[in-house]
């Protein structure tokens, strides 16, 4: 297949994936929350409530796009897109399977982080533009939270780049070929703190995507709906889709960096079409296991206090990730043959 067609096909696929995923993650979240809370969750619209996300989507789309008094119309309208679009863009470099990737580029990891940092700008502009004091408080919280959590996340990523010597996501996964103890989370020979690095990365991705227990940006019992307070209809819907797309990106990145991406836990490889499906299966399994953990955490724990959140980052995560960086560097330098 000629390259341009392939890329276009894949981009259509990733956009559909991002959109559907966001819609059906809401369903999963509501169903999961329902079962955690001893109730059924959505069940009326379609079998098992499977058409609920579509009904929700139609409801949001048919709502009037209403501009509250005093908002900055441009910022107000652009902000949801600034959360949604970078998230979808990041999907382009996520390898779902060996060849199942829109674009294999050498700086895939860098590109994802570059796009991920636009997310917070969107939230800030949205809350500033909506001229609401609750939203502004949420926006300010959002920025300090994202700044605080981007640092340990990036330090951990730098550690991983030192280990892998590449920013190509496909290459990173290929390096974890073989049995499941080749996955970086279990590679104690590279760094003794590898499982800790995995935890740091996962916690940071929770905080980066504003998920409970770090959902300061929304904090419905304090700030009504935080950043989204003034957003009607699809404005809110796009924010929401962006948020879920970001969760998927965060979990996908965790899977790729630490859990071996599309690699199966036992070295059993198929060729051709079956191989693609096999890889896809393992990637999605790991991805959704992580996403389920995210949902599970949200419905189990209360929200942290804001200064506890920053304390956790500056006093625990950053020192640990720095220590991990140094330890890994030493281990690579001293035992280069490993």
């Amino acid at each position, binding site marked *: 297949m000629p390259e341009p067609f392939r890329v276009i096909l894949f981009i259509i696929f990733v956009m559909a994936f991002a959109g559907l995923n966001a819609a059906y993650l809401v369903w999963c979240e509501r169903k999961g929350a329902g079962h955690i809370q*001893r109730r059924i969750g959505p069940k009326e619209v379609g079998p098992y409530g499977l058409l609920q996300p579509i009904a929700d989507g139609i409801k949001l789309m048919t709502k009037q796009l209403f501009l509250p008094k005093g908002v900055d119309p441009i910022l107000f309208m652009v902000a949801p897109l600034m959360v949604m679009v970078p998230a979808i863009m990041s999907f382009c470099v996520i390898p779902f399977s060996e060849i199942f990737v829109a674009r294999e580029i050498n700086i895939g990891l860098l590109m994802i982080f570059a796009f991920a940092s636009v997310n917070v700008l969107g939230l800030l502009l949205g809350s500033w533009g909506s001229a609401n004091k609750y939203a502004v408080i949420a926006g300010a919280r959002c920025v300090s939270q994202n700044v605080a959590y981007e640092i340990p996340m990036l330090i951990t990523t730098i550690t991983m780049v030192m280990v892998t010597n590449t920013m190509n996501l496909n290459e990173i996964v290929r390096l974890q070929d073989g049995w499941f103890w080749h996955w970086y989370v279990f590679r104690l020979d590279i760094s003794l703190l590898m499982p800790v690095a995995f935890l740091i990365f996962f916690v940071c991705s929770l905080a980066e995507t504003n998920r409970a227990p770090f*959902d300061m940006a929304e904090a419905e*019992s*304090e700030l009504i709906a935080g950043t989204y307070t003034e957003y009607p209809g699809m404005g809110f819907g796009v924010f929401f889709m962006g948020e879920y797309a970001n969760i998927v990106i965060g979990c996908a990145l965790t899977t790729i960096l630490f859990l071996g991406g599309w690699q199966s836990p036992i070295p059993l490889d198929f060729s051709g079409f079956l191989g693609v499906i096999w890889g896809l299966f393992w990637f999605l399994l790991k991805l959704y296991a992580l996403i389920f953990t995210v949902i599970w955490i949200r419905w*189990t724990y*209360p929200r*942290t206090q*804001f*200064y506890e959140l920053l304390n956790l980052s500056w006093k625990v995560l950053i020192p640990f990730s720095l220590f991990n960086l140094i330890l890994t560097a030493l281990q690579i330098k001293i035992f280069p043959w490993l």
Partner: protein
Amino acid sequence: MNGLLQQDLNQETFTINLGPQHPATHGVLRVKLVMDGEYIVEAEPVLGYIHRMHEKMGENRTWAKFLPNCGRMDYLCALSYNHGYVAAIERAAGIEVPERAEYIRVITVELNRISSHLLWFGAFVLDLGGFTPLLYAFDDREQILDLLESVTGSRLTYCYFRFGGVYNDIDDSFITGTREFIKRLRERLPMYDALVTKNIILIKRLKDIGPISKDMARRYGATGPVARGSGINFDVRKHEPYSVYSEFDFDIPVYEEGDSMARYMVRMKEMEQSMRIIEQALDKLPEGDIQPKKAVKMVKPEKGDYYHAVEAARGSFGVRLVSNGTNTAYRLKLRSPTYSNLSLFGEATKGMLLPDALALMGSLDLVIPEIDR
């Protein structure tokens, strides 16, 4: 120049309206907050959004006709308010209450207290951002509502007590149901303890947050779990025993810390004590009438000034009635506990962060219709 500088400094603060429509206020309370960033400079609760003139209504209807109003004040612990009012009338008019009726009153009021505390527990954790415990607590509370429905006929705004007794006798199914419920709740409370009370996030959000000193609680007339969380050992049931409370063996949980955690713990322990009271009352339940032999028809208390307080779920609820010897009250003053408990909010939250202040507000256990009456 100095003045200008002062003005600039003043502009650092801004005012936000918390409520009357805000998820954290559980009703139509409005709090005017002057904020410096996320720090509260000044908090002023604004009341009156659900004022229904209960006291005035008491003055222009007969004593008996006011009875249903009591259940509409604090809809979460309506039976205590029933109890306060009928006990005040009984004291004023000198009506004897059969012992069985007093026991039934104690059993139902304590069940109602547990249901109120369960709902508070769920709503409080919801305030802190944990959604799930609310549904578990409602699951338990549902059992109480079913039990109370079977004897009182209603599920929320009870009007079950009568002057001189209660409206309906309890039957065996209620008694076995209550025993089963107590057994069930005894199994559930350790689970709440493990899941919620020992949760590190919850502890960090409540411990040493929102301290209310003994002195502050006294000055504002705080009662109930708020006062007991600040180390004031006062419970009307124990210190001015009414009904048949003096016959039961129960403890008053008192915590000295005065923080949100102390108030939380007081309520969790109170549920256990209420279960103890109910068990003893069920064991001792005497046979007999549930209303006086000679039916109470037209109540006309002697001319005078009477007061009776009961311990409601939120603190001491007092009814002061001034009678001029007719069949309506000359003046009916209802002393509701949450009103006093809320009044310390402004002083207690000075300099506090907004989320902490909302945790403090949740720990006060506000029921807005009872503040406004």
